């Protein structure tokens, strides 16, 4: 018997999209918790940004304190988001192994997690940016344009963190031999 021609086995993008949506829909509460984790981190970041914008022209000491706070909030946010995403990928090693057995390419698996993380990251980050920025902006009378800019930046930061934190472990899991992924118990 001859070796069959190897064709491109990747299904259209909507297959990955449906898989990601099903995963969010069915695991709604689990995913909600993940997304709240992301939202809290980003809310902290957005609120510090807004405070900084609302009280400009402070002393050099004030400014450096603000920067320090901003840095801290980013680190906290990163740790929170990474933790949530690592857990949510680790829980699903088995599922990854199974999908591999069904003939999914490594790329397909990464794509599913990418879409999921984008959706979770976007919704969580936007909610967080809103909660963090808007109340403080109202109290400190920050201009709408500035708040919009801060919210946009926070959402983008949150989304990219979420995607990065999900893709790294998902890609690693996708590359594992299927048997190893199936054996993992979390």
């Amino acid at each position, binding site marked *: 018997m001859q070796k*069959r021609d190897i064709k491109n086995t990747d299904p259209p993008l909507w*297959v990955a999209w449906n898989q990601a949506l099903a995963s969010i829909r*069915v695991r709604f509460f689990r995913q909600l918790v993940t997304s709240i984790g992301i939202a809290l981190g980003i809310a902290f970041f957005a609120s510090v940004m807004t405070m900084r914008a609302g009280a400009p022209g402070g002393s050099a000491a004030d400014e450096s304190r603000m920067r320090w706070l901003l840095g801290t909030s980013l680190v906290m946010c990163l740790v929170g988001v990474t933790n949530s995403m690592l857990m949510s990928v680790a829980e699903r090693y088995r599922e990854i192994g199974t999908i591999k057995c069904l003939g999914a390419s490594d790329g397909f698996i990464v794509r599913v997690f990418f879409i999921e993380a984008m959706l979770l990251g976007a919704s969580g980050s936007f909610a967080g940016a809103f909660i963090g920025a808007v109340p403080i902006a109202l109290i400190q009378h920050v201009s709408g344009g500035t708040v919009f800019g801060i919210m946009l930046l926070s959402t983008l930061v949150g989304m990219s963190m979420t995607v990065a934190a999900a893709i790294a472990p998902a890609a690693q899991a996708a590359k594992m031999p299927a*048997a190893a992924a199936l054996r993992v118990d979390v």
Partner: protein
Amino acid sequence: MSEIVVRTTDVVKQYGEGEAAVRALAGVSCEIFAGEYLSIMGPSGSGKSTLFNMIGGLDKPNSGSVFVNSVDIAQLTPRELAFLRCHTIGYIFQTFNLITVRTALENVTLPMLFAGVTPEEAEDRGRELLDLVGLGHRYHHRPTELSGGQQQRVAIARSLANRPAIILADEPTGNLDLKTGQEIIDLLRKLNEEQQVTIISATHDHKMLDVSDRIFHIRDGQLAKVQTKAEAVTSGLHD
């Protein structure tokens, strides 16, 4: 039954390194013929699941080769391996391993979508397969809403999705009660006869052995004995 569908030559697999290394397979050579119903038998820890993983391309041996349809699977790229899993091999697991977030029908159609079948065609064939395994009324149930036996039937339908040459079943009755297990065995045997699909099953279920054409006995990572059905009947299985 002359065409060889799987051949292994001196397959060695060990886990871990140095002194802590465990040799799960210590040089297994075997041939499996197209269309046969083969059981791999052995106590737990004997290496039968490891052999199963090797044959299925789920893991790579440390040395030796595994040929599926005359293709050395160690030489395949990840993408080619995915293609092989998709088109040539269907998997059934002890723990069913359905995709929990998808319905029964979606579980069956997913491998077909990987194979590039159109959604309409996949759905038609998915329904056909679920009817075949006796789950015609459970298309849109999710795995959590199905009993163990029903889940295993979905898994069997899913394994048949892309008309594989081989179905690999790792203790398919291990998590089922006696009666349900018997039903699953009968179903597998029926599919083996009607669809001429080769069935390779790791098991220690004696009921499974009754329907097997041949039995591989694995002991301590080696192929200790190969029994044909006739031999198994005359010598008695329950040794």
